[in-house]
C-alpha cells in the first residue's frame, strides 16, 4: 500500500516538474523592486526600534537622547520609509524576461500541452486519487 502511495506521489511530483519549466517563464510581477526595498527598510526600522527600546530600558531618562543620537550615528533609520524604494534595478527586468521568453516560451507551452493530451482526456491519476479517497468533492478529507 505504501509503495502505491509513493508511486502516486512520484507521478504527481513528475507532473508538477513538467510544469516547473513553464511556470518559471511567468513574467515577474510588477513592483517587485519596491517590495524588496520596503521589506528591507521595514526590517532595518524594526531593528533600530528594538535597539532604541532596549537602550531606553537600560538608561536613565537623561540617556534617552544619547541613545537616539547613537542610533542615528550608527546609521540605523529610526523610522522605516513605508513607500518607495532606493534600489530599483537600472535595467528593466521585464525586457530581459520578454527576450528570454520569446526564445523558448511558446515552445515550452506547446511541449507541455502537446505532451499531455492523453492525460487530459483520460487522466489515469484521477482514478488513483479517487481510489485513495481523494475525490474532488472531499479531497480535504484525504490522506
Amino acid at each position, binding site marked *: 500500500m505504501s509503495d502505491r502511495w509513493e508511486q502516486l506521489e512520484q507521478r504527481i511530483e513528475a507532473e508538477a516538474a513538467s510544469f516547473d519549466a513553464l511556470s518559471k517563464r*511567468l513574467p515577474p510581477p510588477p513592483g517587485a523592486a519596491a517590495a524588496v526595498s*520596503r521589506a528591507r527598510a*521595514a526590517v532595518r526600522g524594526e531593528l533600530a526600534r528594538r535597539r532604541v527600546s532596549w537602550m531606553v530600558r537600560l538608561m536613565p531618562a537623561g540617556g534617552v537622547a544619547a541613545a537616539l543620537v547613537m542610533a542615528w550615528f550608527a546609521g540605523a533609520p529610526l523610522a522605516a520609509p513605508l513607500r518607495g524604494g532606493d534600489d530599483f534595478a537600472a535595467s528593466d527586468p521585464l525586457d530581459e524576461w520578454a527576450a528570454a521568453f520569446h526564445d523558448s516560451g511558446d515552445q515550452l507551452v506547446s511541449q507541455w500541452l502537446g505532451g499531455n493530451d492523453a492525460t487530459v482526456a483520460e487522466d489515469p491519476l*484521477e482514478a488513483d486519487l479517487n481510489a*485513495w479517497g481523494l475525490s*474532488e468533492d472531499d*479531497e480535504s478529507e484525504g*490522506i
Partner: protein
Amino acid sequence: MENGGRDDELLGRARRRDPAALDELVAAFSPRVYGLLYRLTGSADVAQDLTQETFLRVVRTIDRYSHDGRFEAWIFRIAANLARDQVRARRRRGMTLSLDSEREDEESRSPVDPRDDAMPSARLAASEDAGLLEAALARLSEPEREILMMRHYGDLSFREIADALNVPLGTALARAHRALQRLKKWMSSSEEDSE
C-alpha cells in the same frame, strides 16, 4: 539557501538579529515572497504591504523558530497565512479578491499588457502564451492557485507545502494534479480557439 552549513550559520546570525544577516534573508527571499503574495492577492499594493509584514514577523519571531525543516518553508507559511487573512478580511467586508476582477487598474496591467505603446516587440511576442497562462492561473480556485504558486515561488516539495498549509499530503497532491489538469484544459482550448 541550499548549503546546509551556510544556512545554519546565517540562521544563527539572524536569530541574534544581526542586521547583515537579516538583510541577506530579505535579499534572498523577498522577491519570491512578493511573487507569491502578488499571485495570491492580485494586488501589487497589498502584496507589498504583506511582504513587508512577512519580514517584520520573521524578525519578531525568529528566536521562536525551531529549525526542523527548510527555513524557506517557514517564511512561505507566514506569507501564505497573511494572504489568507487578507482575503478573509476582504470577504468579511463584502469585497471579493480575485486576480481577474480586483487588480487596481495601473497595477493590474500585465507586465506584457499590449496597451503599453512603448512595449518592445519581444515583449509583444511573448505576451500571448504568458497571458494565457496568467489568465488560466487566475481562474483557479484559491486553494489550487496557492499550491501551484507555493511550488513555483517557494520551490517547495509537496510535503513541505502540505506542512506549510497544514493540509494532508494527499490533499496537496490532489489539488496540484487537478489544478494542472484544469490549466492544460483551459490553455488547450484557448490555443484551439486562436487557431
